């Protein structure tokens, strides 16, 4: 469960990028975070994950405050950033082993999981190469495997589907569904409205730091009766 309470953030004084944001993502839920470029999605995610300091308000992950109790809160989630160009000089396997060390995963378990997941995502044969030789999608898959490795209850993913091939995207979506079915939380941002519509239990639309809509797709259709697709609604909501 992720609770965002009265959160505000500005990079430059008095210019609020996020303005009094309130959001609760419940257990067993897939939450899609939508909004135009520069709306504040990445900024929000960076605050949830403790990368950015929160100016006002607080965020709780499974009840642990990210400001008061950062380490415990961070143990409760796994995060895939929007740019996967990390640790380019490490080999894929070294990165995964490093992550497993940070999250203190037993060596037998990590071997099994790395082998299984890398075969599923079809980068098993590339694990012994440096990440700088990976393609964009392969880097992303590696980061996703890094998250799945320590089986956190909450997944936080910033545009996880961009750059993935159809099969990997399908696999990831299935994994998200299975994860939420087990009573866990998935929070991700995306620009693909179709994904949001089909995959998400609830959707949030943000623009200029303000949350414009939160709810299920059905609720949304009721609220905007004259629009017949999510695309229409999205364009209308974010117009002004």
């Amino acid at each position, binding site marked *: 469960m992720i609770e965002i309470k009265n959160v505000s953030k500005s990079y430059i004084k008095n210019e609020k990028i996020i303005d009094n944001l309130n959001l609760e993502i419940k257990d067993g839920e897939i939450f899609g975070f939508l909004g135009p470029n520069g709306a504040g999605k990445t900024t929000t995610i*960076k605050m949830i*994950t*403790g*990368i*950015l*300091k929160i100016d006002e308000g607080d965020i709780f992950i499974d009840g642990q405050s990210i*400001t008061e109790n*950062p*380490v*415990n809160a*961070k*143990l409760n989630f796994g*995060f895939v*950033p929007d*740019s996967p*160009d*990390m*640790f380019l*000089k*490490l080999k894929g*396997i*070294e990165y995964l*082993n*490093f992550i*497993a*060390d*940070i*999250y*203190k*995963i*037993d*060596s037998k378990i*990590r*071997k099994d999981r*790395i*082998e299984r997941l890398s075969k599923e995502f079809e980068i*098993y*044969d*590339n*694990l*012994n*190469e*440096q990440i*700088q*030789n990976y393609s964009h999608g392969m880097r992303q898959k590696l980061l996703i495997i890094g998250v799945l490795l320590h089986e956190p209850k909450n997944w936080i993913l910033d545009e996880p589907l961009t750059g993935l091939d159809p099969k990997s995207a399908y696999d990831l979506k299935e994994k998200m569904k299975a994860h939420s079915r087990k009573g866990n939380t998935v929070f991700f941002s995306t620009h693909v409205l179709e994904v949001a519509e089909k995959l998400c239990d609830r959707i949030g639309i943000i623009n200029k730091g303000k949350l414009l809509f939160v709810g299920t797709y059905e609720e949304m259709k009721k609220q905007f009766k004259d629009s017949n697709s999510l695309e229409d609604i999205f364009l209308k909501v974010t117009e002004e």
Partner: protein
Amino acid sequence: MKETLFLTKILLKNSLNKNANKDKLTFKAIAAKLLMFVAIAYIGGVVAFLSKELIEVLKAANQPEVFISLCLLSTIIIAFIQSILSSLNVLYFSKDIEFLLPLPINSLKIVLAKFNVMLVSEYIVELLTFAIPFLVYGITFQVSIIFYIMSILVFLFLPIIPILLGTILTVILMRFTSFVKNKDLVQYITVFLTFAMIIAIQIYSINTTELTDFMIANKLIQINGLTDIFADYFIILKHGINAITEIENRLALSNILYLIGESITAYLFVSILLSTTYINSATNIVSGNSKKTKTDFRKIKRNSTRKAYIDKEFKILFRNPVFFLNTVLPVLIIPIVLTIPFVSEFFSKGESSSSQAIISAIGENIENTVGFAICICIINFLYMFNYISVTSISREGESVAFIKYIPLELYKQCRYKAIPAFILNFIPLFFIVIGMNLLFSKISISFTLEVFVIGLLCNLFISYAEVLIDILKPKIHWTSEYAVVKQNMNMLWSTIFVLIVSIIILGICSFFENVHVVTLLISAILILTTIFYDNFVKLYSTNIFKKIC
């Protein structure tokens, strides 16, 4: 033509890595410029001084023109060697090729622009190796204006053909060998070769310090004989020499025209020749190893978080040539380079020499607070070349957010990041402590231990505190690793910081006369400061790490 010039300008700007906010005259910018200026003025002064000496020697031997031919010869050789190194970087390893290739510019223009970039950087080198010596020569002999005009023309045209030759050599190498395709490896090799050369020159120059003026003059004239032979094969050298030394008659004019004609012809000819070959091979470069091997799952085992983190730091440091060569290598090389003069002095002369007497005199008087302070300052001076801690955050680049979202306390990461610098600093530390004992045989064990302990504590504090410098002002958003190690003000701050620490230690030492007392006092101060600093980082970690996201 216009397009080529425009392209040259862009490439030059790119390679100089100009800062975007250059018009901001902040204190830091001024300080950096001032430092740069002092360094250049110093080197220029040394060159001018050496030139003056050589000219005087040759004047006495009645053959001053030898100076000119030697200068031209060295210009050609330097241009040739430098072009091999820089053509690798300019032609193959610069990122701009990926942006240039898709543009509708024909490859000849790209090659021409790239030549121009190399030529301009060669002119900058020539300012030191050519312009200053010739100016000194001109002032000494009160030469006519024609001498200067000819010199300028030679200055401009002489390096062209050597650069072309060096470039052709590189292009051939790139085409027919596979090892050169590995960018990282080539960078390691070139830097190691450069260091080998510096060390060789140093050893050679030590052996020649004993020569008299007369012998030097003879040697120079001997080398000049070689120049003559060389000039027979390398016609531009002869043209260059004649253009300057024969200004009294018509020979100079025809020679300079030959030189200009040859250079321009070669420049155009080689550019056309290379424009196809180069583009083909430039697109073939890969960086890093791309060997596909099977993953050995038996090697996967659990490590403590600390070990995993420090291992990661070392891997990133050692696998990235830019980081390794600029932050680690100086720590290893500088102690060696600095001690070569002492070592060869030590071995080349017997017991009877005067320097031996000086050494033993120092050895007998070193065990006091002054000697102690000097030992510590030398150790600290060597720590200055360790830029590992002060770049530990910036090196992460865009991956830096990782620090914040993993479940590992920030202050712990801060400690771990100090470890690589701390470990590598043991090299200069042992170097001095052992070297001190070899040089002065009478040093007591207690003095050695005391120097070691304070050196160790300084290492701990400096390595750890420099991480904070980088945390407060990290350089994260870079596209090329050079941004981290070049033009990074943090490196200057780290130098200043070590200087301050050294000055404080010097100050404390000057108040006392007993080495044991000083050791106790400084240890106490260093330990307390380190503990205080550690707690400070622990308490305020969220605020300290604010800039990192």
